[in-house]
């Protein structure tokens, strides 16, 4: 029976560990809800996590990915809140997009407290980039241009209005002293690549996206990164990209990938999943997936994750208010 085998192995592996004190293998069927259609980012998170669970030796059972698209994750969130309470076999792929939606009350009648936040498996940092031959050389210069004429620079991004890309941009601009930020011209496209194409074609000036979206175009010599919204410079080979922080604008925007679970889990259930995420993150299998997909190190679980998420939601909420005033 896998449950006992796993517990025993876990206890052996680390002599006195919290899970010996009662992490329990889930009773319910293992399922990962992807709040998007196959092929989307959340679907990717689920499927790669499921594969890594086995590779990391957490379980030899297979975890099924269930696609539940709709309302930018709202359909799955509502489903978990109303129908899956206490289900210990279910995890749901999540990202900063959930934080944005929660900050803007776009899951009607629900809040972050209605689910159990488990942890993250890496992050994709937001970047601000221009065409290689653009006259804009740095973030301060961009801000100066905007301050003298807010319509002189036009932005493209892959998220909707008040979505992740736009909010990050506005956080940077308002931090840089631009006011009011409401008049900034931002156009949303269906995905990051489409937004980038618009900038390549010269239809728009600056693209806001995640480093994984931008990087191939940077390597091809078509885009130049003005600023990465990370705490420190990214690991090699991206160590030459300047952060916003070192240009005097302290905005950090990790687009994290992680999971939440239904509310009403016992501590033992919670511990099982947090430990599973820890072990997957530490596995070679996952590290390779991160490297190939441009995911950067970003691993917080349990209480630390909840604190981080509260802060992120707070920051997003404040920026949203600035625009909606």
């Amino acid at each position, binding site marked *: 029976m896998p449950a006992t085998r796993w517990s025993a192995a876990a206890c052996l592996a680390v002599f006195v560990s919290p899970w010996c004190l009662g992490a329990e293998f889930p009773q319910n069927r293992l399922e990962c809800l992807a709040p998007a*259609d*196959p*092929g*989307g980012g959340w*679907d*990717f998170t689920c*499927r*790669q996590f499921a594969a890594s669970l086995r590779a990391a030796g957490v379980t030899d059972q297979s975890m099924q*990915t269930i*696609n*539940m*698209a*709709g*309302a930018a994750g*709202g*359909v799955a969130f*509502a489903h978990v809140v109303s129908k899956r309470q206490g289900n210990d076999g279910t995890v749901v792929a999540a990202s900063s997009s959930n934080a944005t939606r929660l900050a803007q009350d776009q899951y*009607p009648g629900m809040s972050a407290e209605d689910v159990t936040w488990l942890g993250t498996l890496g992050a994709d940092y937001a970047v601000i980039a221009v065409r290689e031959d653009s006259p804009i050389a740095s973030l301060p210069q961009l801000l100066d241009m905007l301050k003298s004429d807010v*319509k002189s620079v*036009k932005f493209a991004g892959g998220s*909707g*209005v*008040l979505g992740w890309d736009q909010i990050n941009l506005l956080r940077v601009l308002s931090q840089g002293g631009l006011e009011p930020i409401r008049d900034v*011209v931002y*156009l*949303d496209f*269906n*995905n990051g*690549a*489409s937004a*980038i*194409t*618009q900038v*390549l*074609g*010269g*239809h*728009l000036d600056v693209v806001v996206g995640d480093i*994984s979206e931008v*990087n*191939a*175009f940077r*390597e*091809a010599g*078509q885009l130049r990164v003005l600023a990465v919204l990370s705490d420190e410079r990214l690991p090699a080979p991206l160590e030459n990209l300047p952060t916003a922080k070192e240009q005097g604008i302290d905005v950090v925007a990790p687009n994290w990938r992680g999971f939440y679970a239904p509310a009403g889990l016992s501590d033992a259930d919670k511990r099982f999943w947090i430990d599973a995420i820890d072990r997957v993150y530490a596995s070679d299998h996952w590290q390779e*997936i991160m490297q*190939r*997909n*441009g995911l950067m190190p970003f691993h917080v679980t349990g209480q630390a994750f909840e604190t981080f998420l509260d802060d992120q939601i707070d920051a997003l909420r404040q920026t949203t208010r600035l625009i909606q005033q």
Partner: protein
Amino acid sequence: MFDFLIQGFGVALTPLNLGLAFLGALLGTLFGALPGIGPINGIAILMPLAYTLGLPAESALILLAGIYTGSEYGGRMSSILLNVPGDAGAVMTTLDGHPLAKKGLAGPALGLSAVSSFIGASVAILGLTLFAPLLAIVAVKFGPAEFFALMIFAFASMSAMMGKDPLKTLIGAVLGVLISTVGVDSGTGVLRFTFDMPELYDGIDFVVMIIGLFAVSEILLMLEHAFRHDQDGEMAPIGRVMVKMSEVLYCKWAILRSSVIGFVIGVLPGTGASVASAVAYTTEKRISDHDNSFGTGNMRGLAAPEAANNASAAGSFVPMLTLGIPGSGTTAILLGALMLYNINPGPMMFREQPMVVGGLIASLYIGNVMLLLLNLPLAGVFARVLQVPRWLLVPSVAILAFVGVYQLHSDLMAIYLMLAIGVFGYLLRKFGFSLAPVVLGFVLGGLMEENLRRALSISGGDVGILFQSNLSIGLWIAAALVVLVPMFAGKLKAKFLPAAKPS
């Protein structure tokens, strides 16, 4: 320069990959033929399977690409046989395909569409091989203003369809545009016509729309006939099964023109098979419909959209492989499949993953030949579907449609919506509306609005931006010509070519 292709054929011609290409072609044909399943669902169903089976990236992509191109072939079957398009790109195929089947020419119609599909796809794959990196530059030139002008051109082309009843075509298109506005407005986040139902936030799904409009209304019509004890078997007996060479030759220019149109439109991100087949059909009607027989079973009216939708399927690989932009809903899922294999499409892909790109393109060549070989002999078999009594056939299709739509959304709301749209479609048909303009209005309307608003927010509300680039001016002129020329050409023709007779 074509090393990657030679390498690619090396990859694609291994027994496993040949088998997968065949499997993909076969399954794709079936998925396309079954209304409601279509390429998006087909790939969505098989992608996780391919991944779980541990197929290498090239092999998985070959399988999925086979399904994609195969379903463009399959989509025509139910269009021709049942007047129910199997997928989005097959809507225009109903216009002349189904009348042909009613005349007893189901077999030749299926055969002709297979040949047209083959040629369309071949032209496009050749274009993909030769010009992909070059075409990426063209795709980049299309900003919001250019896309808006393109949509205007597409709407202008529709005026060619206004043959019998211009007013009803216009109303139909407007209704389609109206339906496209349901959902969260992308510009401002305002909810439009959602009636507080979260299920409507994302707008109305294309599959739900097509299946409701065509399949459900078809069933309702049949029910009505059954109630009134009408003669239901209006279908002519199946005569000849194979398409004649002379028929193919009669359509040769239609096919070639439409292949090019389909490819070019396929290359532009965000458009896809439905727009391509519509523009090809209407262009062909303009050029070669001398006796006003389009819509009543003209072979060219069938060949044009079929060549175009297959060409656009291959064309949409251009932005996907070179820029990482999905040119259609289906390529969006294919992109996801690539990412599952840790391959990030984009400008570096041709350089970094020549095996994958080459293997994919080579498999498109191979798959296309397989599809022709598979579909020509099957035309006769499939034509026999018509011998199944309609009271059995149509409900079976309906069940498949219901299952397909439900599996897409896992939500009963989608089914109710489909039924409501079905009743709406039934009423439209009773009032003598054609459904194709409604669908086109629906597809084009959303794209047109989105791009107009983007263009205007770039310019700060100045309409001048719509006429700034040569590309958009060209498209505006083309749109104007499409509407104006026939008005004068009709008169000129009557003067100079009194003896122009249909061949």
